[in-house]
């Protein structure tokens, strides 16, 4: 697969996940659905970081730092629901 085709594949995934975010959000407000929406957001962040930002083949520290950010945000949002 060429680099350009991989990028288009990432965009298709991002678009589909964006639509599923809205559908999941409209389905209810249970903790499970909130976790689902956050998981979708994490998947989108991963596509941007590894695909668009090309961190898949970057030094592990930088990839870990960037992937750690959405994970920290999603965990924080989920934990705030337990307040």
């Amino acid at each position, binding site marked *: 697969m060429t680099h350009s085709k991989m*990028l288009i594949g990432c965009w298709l995934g991002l*678009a589909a996940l964006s*639509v599923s975010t809205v559908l999941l*959000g409209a389905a209810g407000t249970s903790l499970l659905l909130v976790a689902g929406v956050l998981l979708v*957001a994490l998947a989108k962040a991963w596509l941007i970081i590894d695909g*668009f930002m090309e*961190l898949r083949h*970057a030094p592990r520290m930088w990839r870990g730092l960037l992937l750690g950010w959405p994970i920290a945000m999603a965990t924080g949002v989920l934990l705030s629901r337990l307040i």
Partner: protein
Amino acid sequence: MSTSLEHLSGPARRPDQTRSGQDRSEPARPGPVNANSSEKQNQSQNRRLTGDLAMWFLILAELSAFGILILVFAVMQALNSELFHASRLALDSSIGLALTLALLSSGLLAALAVAQVRQARTGRAALLLLVAVLSAGVYVVLKLGEFSHLAGLGFGLEYNTFFTLYWLLTGFHFLHVLLGIFILGWMAERCRRRAYSATNCSALESGVLYWHMVDLVWVLLFPLVYVLN
């Protein structure tokens, strides 16, 4: 900087370059253990960051700033859940989805432009960057429409906690989008003048990385502000 801090950013190699040449130049080593460790060492040496290292530090700083705002929003929503639910009714999640698709499309086009420059097609890259600016322009028009609609309804910065955080978060992000559009436009013009080449496109990569950072932040902002009740 990328040379002096090579131990942080890795050696200079484009991601689309193959590693076979380096593999062939490695001397033969006896035994599978040594072969495996040599392969791992090669893989580790071949890992590199695109763009300039300074841009990555800027991205980390920006993500930290947005991270604080996002967590404050989440905690305030947990403490005022009914207020946030009622206030969010003024927002349209389909507009949020359109904003997301406009930004992501612009991100794709910018990434494709970098791929074209690496193949020495700067003319195509300039065109892709120009379309990326137009796609980002759709975001700006939609967002300004939303800002104007909310302001018209009286939901200003001081209306309640939700709208204070809404204006701060999305307004701060909007300013980043405006700067990103300027950078994309600047790079489109530089591409048109053939200022970048396959071996000299670190500045282009850095500018596009900034734009992807704007995308990355929005990916978390969108569900938090528009969707999660």
